[in-house]
């Protein structure tokens, strides 16, 4: 079955139209903006599901189905130096899965927002941004070339900036959105450089060949572009973009602050759109991370040789571990989830780096479900409690039973409790790690234990025990918010079942090339260890937090156990360099220097020239105005006045005189004509 080229176009254009409508007519639509956005984005999501269904049904086992098309070509230059940018779409299993995740989860989050954002003054603007966010993320997923990918990549960044800073009156939100934008920009710079490098090496930005347009991956894969050391550099630069976007060490610092936006935005950023972009990009460019194809990256004068894949895996693993430890000590319900996102993204990167292509993307999908679910639950809790501090909550199990139940599903999925989705995808990654690198595997297992621990901690503190603040009377959220929770909890619970070791449908569907078919390396030992790690974490957490009564975060039992380490973790490993004074101050010193140079020298020179020119011209202009223009005007007035003074003398007001004048004029006319007659008669 084929897909008409109009379908991918509609998938991108419909949310964009929604954005235009909500942005332009928003102030008239007010509450109805949500209806517009939901219907248009919903249509787009339906098309996403349709595309996914078509691809899934038509997929041949062990062989990727790639549907491509080009909407328009942009030609730069002509003749030999011309460069073609074919704007089009690509639909392969990876894309279709991403379409499904983004469209499906994104729409449910938007539905949830209807309830969450009710009464906000900029209600329509919120839905405009959300629509643009969806449009750019879907465009990113469907892009068939690096340029379009980059454009959508930046649009996603822009939308996250707008949405994180949605409540820009609040100081932290304002700071957070700037931070997110600036930090990801560092990565984007690398990404752009990587794209330039690839375009230079291969002479193309297209992913896969279409007709006589050769694609980057196709030509690298079949060896028509000779391998050289620049490939590894290019992939490292591309990965820099992913580090920024997917919040990997050391550019992870923006993500925890991004929770200053409205909670549904956090859900969207953490689950379906923003951070998924980096992982998706690495998966899309997977050829470039294959050691057999691109070789190794030489660092420090060839003293260290590391393949791009290994780099990705190590950074991912370290990020996963670091973020998990930090999550242990945080007290903000959303911040904990944010660090868990970073940790899970580390897992994905680790999987991709180790060659577990389908495992990494599989975890991306399952994570999208349960992280969206968890954030929406957190939003529901915050909606009820009007606070983010977990130690101010407690005992919400009775007041918010639905939220508690769905939260339990999400927490189980994240902590890796079988048969919930997170277990299967995480297990697949860990099984690959066990095959390739025992150290990374061990770190992964420790992280799994920590994940279970901090999630249990959060669950117990928030939902179990007694309510700590008596002045707030929490209530269950409205149905429009609960419905997405239900739907997503089903997804979080069941989506892992398509990728079990015994029946790895997902792995057969989403494969990387023909040569790289991977099964689920079924390892009973790894699975057992993972299960143990998760169960131990949950039990340990429950023993620490579930049984005893904790009134504030100073009484956190972990603090007593870990001692000084706890403070180190609470300070986020002192790694939040963006907030760190030294780097910022150095940066500001440079910036101020530049500013001073600009103000003093450049502006001074320009102002001097401008002043001189302005003075001379003003003087000349004044002279001209004074003597020529004014002279003309005054002259006309004087002349008119003079003529009027003369002519008024004959205006006697007597009819007889007027008649006389008429007759005199008549006589003159007749005399003139007589004169002409005489002239004619006697020339």
């Amino acid at each position, binding site marked *: 079955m084929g897909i008409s080229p109009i379908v991918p176009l509609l998938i991108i254009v419909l949310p964009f139209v929604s954005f235009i409508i909500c942005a332009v007519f928003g102030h008239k639509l007010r509450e109805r903006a949500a209806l517009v956005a939901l219907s248009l984005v919903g249509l787009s999501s339906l098309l996403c599901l349709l595309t996914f269904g078509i691809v899934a049904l038509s997929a041949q086992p062990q062989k990727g189905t790639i549907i491509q098309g080009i909407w328009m070509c942009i030609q730069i230059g002509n003749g030999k130096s011309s460069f073609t940018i074919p704007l089009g779409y690509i639909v392969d299993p990876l894309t279709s899965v991403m379409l499904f995740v983004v469209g499906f989860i994104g729409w449910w989050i938007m539905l949830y927002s209807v309830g969450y954002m009710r009464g906000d003054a900029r209600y329509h603007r919120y839905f405009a941004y959300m629509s643009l966010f969806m449009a750019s993320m879907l465009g990113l997923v469907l892009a068939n070339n690096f340029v379009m990918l980059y454009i959508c990549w930046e649009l996603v960044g822009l939308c996250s900036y707008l949405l994180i800073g949605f409540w820009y009156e609040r100081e932290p939100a304002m700071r957070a959105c700037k931070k997110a934008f600036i930090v990801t920009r560092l990565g984007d710079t690398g990404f752009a450089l990587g794209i330039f490098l690839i375009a230079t090496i291969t002479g193309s930005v297209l992913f896969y060949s279409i007709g006589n347009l050769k694609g980057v991956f196709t030509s690298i894969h079949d060896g028509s572009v000779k391998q050289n050391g620049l490939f590894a550099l290019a992939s490292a630069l591309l990965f820099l973009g992913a580090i920024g976007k997917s919040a990997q060490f050391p550019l992870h610092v923006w993500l925890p602050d991004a929770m200053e936006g409205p909670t549904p935005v956090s859900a969207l950023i953490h689950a379906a759109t923003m951070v998924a972009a980096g992982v998706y990009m690495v998966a899309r460019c997977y050829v470039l991370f294959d050691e057999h194809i691109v070789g190794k990256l030489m660092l420090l004068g060839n003293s260290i040789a590391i393949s791009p894949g290994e780099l990705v895996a190590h950074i991912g693993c370290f990020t996963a571990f670091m973020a998990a430890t930090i999550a242990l000590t945080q007290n903000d319900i959303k911040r904990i989830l944010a660090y868990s996102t970073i940790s899970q993204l580390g897992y994905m990167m680790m999987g991709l780096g180790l060659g577990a292509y389908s495992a990494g993307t599989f975890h991306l999908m399952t994570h999208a479900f349960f992280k969206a679910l968890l954030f929406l639950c957190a939003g529901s809790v915050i909606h009820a409690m009007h606070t983010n501090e977990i130690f101010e909550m407690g005992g919400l199990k009775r007041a918010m039973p639905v939220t508690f139940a769905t939260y339990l599903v999400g927490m189980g999925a994240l902590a890796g409790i079988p048969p919930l989705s997170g277990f299967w995808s995480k297990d697949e990654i860990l099984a690959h790690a066990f095959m390739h690198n025992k150290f990374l595997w061990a770190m992964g297992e420790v992280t799994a234990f920590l994940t279970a621990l901090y999630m249990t901690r959060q669950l117990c503190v928030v939902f179990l025990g007694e309510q700590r603040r008596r002045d707030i009377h929490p209530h269950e959220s409205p149905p429009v918010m609960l419905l997405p929770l239900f739907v997503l909890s089903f997804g979080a619970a069941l989506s892992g079942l398509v990728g079990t070791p015994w029946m790895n449908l997902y792995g057969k569907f989403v494969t990387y090339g023909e040569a790289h078919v991977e099964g689920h390396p079924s390892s009973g030992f790894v699975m057992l260890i993972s299960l143990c790690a998760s169960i131990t974490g949950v039990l340990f957490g429950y023993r620490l937090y579930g049984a005893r009564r904790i009134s504030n975060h100073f009484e956190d039992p972990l603090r007593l156990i870990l001692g000084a380490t706890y403070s180190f973790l609470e300070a986020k490993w002192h790694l939040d360099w963006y907030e760190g004074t030294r780097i910022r101050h150095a940066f500001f010193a440079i910036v101020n220097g530049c500013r001073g140079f600009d103000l003093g020298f450049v502006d001074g020179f320009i102002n001097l020239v401008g002043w001189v020119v302005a003075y001379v011209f003003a003087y000349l202009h004044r002279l001209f105005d004074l003597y020529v223009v004014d002279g003309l005007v005054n002259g006309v007035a004087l002349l008119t006045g003079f003529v009027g003074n003369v002519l008024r003398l004959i*205006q006697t007001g007597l*009819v007889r005189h007027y008649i006389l004048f008429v007759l005199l004029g008549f006589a003159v006319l007749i005399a003139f004509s007589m004169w002409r007659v005489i002239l004619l008669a006697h020339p």
Partner: protein
Amino acid sequence: MHYLVLSALLFSIGIYGVLTRRNAIAILMGIELMLNAVNLNFVAVCASLTPNQITGQIFAAFVIVVAAAEACIGFALIIAIYRNFAKVNVDDINIMRW
């Protein structure tokens, strides 16, 4: 030729009346004389230059129509002026003066 002389004489008498009379009604009477002279001219010239056409008569008819309208308005104005100033001597009325 005779008609032209006759109409010129009539016209001159009308001008004399218009110029010498002080009474507005008398002035209008002079104007009527002049219009009649013009009509005579129209008819005579037409009859001798283009004996088979009646354009001159049509023109004279229109002149009569316009003259009737003019007389109508003129006398209405005279009555209005008389009611406002209680006089019809044009020499005494100089509100058209600057």
